[in-house]
């Protein structure tokens, strides 16, 4: 007979299948954990691109900077970087809030603000890059 923490199946009030479908106490399964790691790996790769871009932009004036950012490959990579960073930072700040804020109402207010801030940063980056790309 299958056991869980030493309790026989006959004495558990939910079956292992039901428990698995419930996705644990957070009702989220390993989704947050996996997304955190996936966006971390993506962010690391994009950081290499960002470092090269940063060096390329260091000596650039307005026209040169617009030409560099307006390049379709550069612009696409930069939008991808923004997506990876913004998703990753939303997940990270969520953990910080859940760790330290125990007042329920304040916690949900901050979790909502976190989502809005992360999304806003992404959309501002997207629109700004788009404006540079399509005005060339």
């Amino acid at each position, binding site marked *: 007979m299958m056991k869980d923490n030493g309790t026989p199946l006959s004495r558990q009030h939910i079956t292992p299948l039901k428990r698995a479908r419930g996705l644990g106490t957070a009702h989220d399964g390993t989704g947050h954990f996996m997304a955190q*790691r996936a966006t*971390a*790996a993506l*962010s*690391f790769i994009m*950081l290499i691109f*960002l*470092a090269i871009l*940063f*060096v*390329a932009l*260091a*000596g650039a004036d*307005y026209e040169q*900077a*617009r030409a560099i*950012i307006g390049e379709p490959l550069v612009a696409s990579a930069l939008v991808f970087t923004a997506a990876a*960073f*913004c998703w990753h*930072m939303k997940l*990270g*700040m969520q953990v*910080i809030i859940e760790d330290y804020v125990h007042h329920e109402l304040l916690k949900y207010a901050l979790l909502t603000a976190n989502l809005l801030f992360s999304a806003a*940063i992404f959309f*501002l*980056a997207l*629109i*700004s*890059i788009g*404006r*540079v790309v399509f005005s060339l």
Partner: protein
Amino acid sequence: MSAHQVRTANGRAQRRPLSPHLQIYRPSITMVMSILHRITGAVLYFATFLGVWWLMGLASGPKYFAYVDDMFRSWPGLVILFAITYQLFHHAFGGIRHLIWDADFCFSKQAAERLGLWSLLLAVACTALVWVLGWWT
């Protein structure tokens, strides 16, 4: 300092012992890197706005771009940019360290400490490399 004021069932205040926390332990590289990973993560969260602000400047035209770009190229601006560069690499290599642990490697005390030291050295080296290259172009 290891006592905590609580109220018992009959309403009397009582001081109860607490388990040891941060101020008790001698700092180790693994502990310091763990704390710094969270702090740099939180700082970078808000620092993304600076990157977006620069992009907004670039999208808004030459006049506003000159204002934004001058801010970044002023001494306080460069110091802030340098700090953000370092924190990006610190958090990135600290993250790689966590991915290595997630893959079930380097869990011995010596390996974990070596990993912390390496991520610190790589973060310093990459920051230096980017700024030396950036300064010369």
